[in-house]
Every structure is written in C-alpha cells, then in structure tokens.
C-alpha cells in the first residue's frame, strides 16, 4: 500500500489501516523518543501519545511532507515537551526541598538509561558520550540524535526539525565541536 492510499484510508477512519501505521512506525517512534528522553517507560508513554495525536489529527495532515516525516516530527515535539516539563518539575522539586521540613532526606536521583542496543564493549564509552549529549543545547541534541543515532539523512532531519539543510549541517558541526570539547575535558580529568 502506498503512503497516499494509507493516508486516504486513515482519513476515512479505517482502523485496520491505523494498525498498519502502528506496525510501520511504532519501533522508530519508540527509538527516537528513547534517544531523546533516555528512559524506556517514558519513551513508551510518549509513543502512545504520538499515536493518539496521529489518530486525532490525521484529518489535518496536509501532505506537505512524507507521512513518516510527520510522524517523527510529532515524536520529536512530544519528547522535547516531555523533557521541558520534567525540567520544570525538577526546578519546582528543588524549591520544594528548600522550603520543606524534611529537606535533610536524601534525594532520589534517576540516572538516564543507556541504549539497550549498544554492544557490551562499547557500553562504558557510550555512557560517557551519552552524558555529554545530555549537556548539548536542545536543537543540537535533537539533530545529533536523529542523524548519528537514528541514521536519518540531513534532508530528513531538516524536514523533521522544520529547518534548512544548511542549518542542520551547522547544528551538527557545532554539536560535534561541543562534544569533542566535553569529551576532551572528561579525558583530561579521568582517563589521563
């Protein structure tokens, strides 16, 4: 079935075709969400939210991009929204701790998960790199995740992020520079 036929049937409310859409894109959606939020449970919740959004707004899909690009764009937006909300909650939590009576209690720190698909011999290095990626600005991080980890082309990343290819190239260049600096600092402190 072509994209066009699938879109037509989805717009007509064909639930079997929605099943096909899930089959085609759920794994990629889950992986993109995981690589941005670094937590499998959260990524699964985001995946569900993404398909609910698709189900609700397929009527408004204008076919200006490929169906897959539209799906991944929703995924990136939902994942970034999730991270922003999490940051706000964290800030509020710190404030609450400052003013609460039992502030002496130790804080539970939830460390981000490492990608389960990374080979064992790379796990330590990947963990270091992952921590460095977390420190990148939002757009650089998104571009890096989509291009280097999710293997999307520059053009696809540009479509997903609503940018020109030149802007994506520049983002990736800066991301790589920042990562090299962060990793260099880490090397000086820990590996030397």
């Amino acid at each position, binding site marked *: 079935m072509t994209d066009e036929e699938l879109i037509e049937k989805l717009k007509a409310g064909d*639930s*079997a075709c*929605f*099943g096909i859409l*899930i089959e085609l894109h*759920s*794994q990629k959606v*889950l*992986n993109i969400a*995981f690589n941005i939020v670094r937590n*499998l449970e959260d*990524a*699964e919740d985001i*995946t*569900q939210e993404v*398909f*609910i959004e698709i*189900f*609700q707004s397929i009527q408004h899909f204008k076919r200006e991009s490929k169906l897959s690009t539209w799906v991944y764009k929703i995924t990136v937006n939902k994942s970034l929204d999730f991270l922003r909300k999490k940051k706000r909650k964290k800030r509020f939590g710190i404030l609450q701790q400052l003013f609460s009576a039992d502030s002496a209690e130790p804080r539970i720190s939830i460390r981000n998960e490492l*990608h*389960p*698909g*990374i*080979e064992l011999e*790379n796990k330590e*290095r*990947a963990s*270091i*790199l*992952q921590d460095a990626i977390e420190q990148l600005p939002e757009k650089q991080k998104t571009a890096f995740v989509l291009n*280097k*980890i999710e*293997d999307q082309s520059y053009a696809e990343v540009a479509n997903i992020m609503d940018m020109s290819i030149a802007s994506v190239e520049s983002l990736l260049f800066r991301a*790589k520079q920042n*990562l*090299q600096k962060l*990793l*260099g600092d880490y*090397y*000086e402190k820990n*590996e*030397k």
Partner: protein
Amino acid sequence: MDEKEKWIQETLQSVNKPSRIEVSPLLAQRLQNIALNGVQQMPPAPNPIIPWLAAASIALLLGINILTALWYNDSASYDISAAHTVYSEYFDYLETLN
C-alpha cells in the same frame, strides 16, 4: 593522531547505529487499543469558544464597573444650594417653633 584525539573519536563512534529497541507486547497492545477504541479513550478537546467567552465576560464586567464608577462620580458632584434648600425645607418646622 595523539592518544586523546583517538579516544575522543572512538567515544564519538560508540553510539553509532545501535540495534533497535523492540516494541514490547504490552506497548503493542496499548497502541492497538487506540485504533480499536481510540475515540472513547481520547480526552474531550476543549471547546475553543470557552476561553473567548470567559475573556469577553471579564472585559464586560470591567467595562460596566468603569462606567458605573464614572457615572457615580458625575452624579456625586451635586449642587450645594439644592442641598441647602432640601435641608431648610425639611427642618422648617423648627423655625416655626422658634
């Protein structure tokens, strides 16, 4: 390439194209449920007219308050001689007694 450069390059390549995370059967079921009974699952979309109605009501309330305040100020600046007439007419029986 020195040791540090080599280490950075190797680290940068450590997450290149990892194998995919599989969709768990539980998540697959959650996603299929959207298709099967998605409409019932959806929270009702907020009616876009409600915030506008609320804003219009507040504006109307403010407008009425401002108009009332202006009107009250105008009517409060009454003529002192008229007040004196009322006073003397009301208490004129006192003058009669005197």
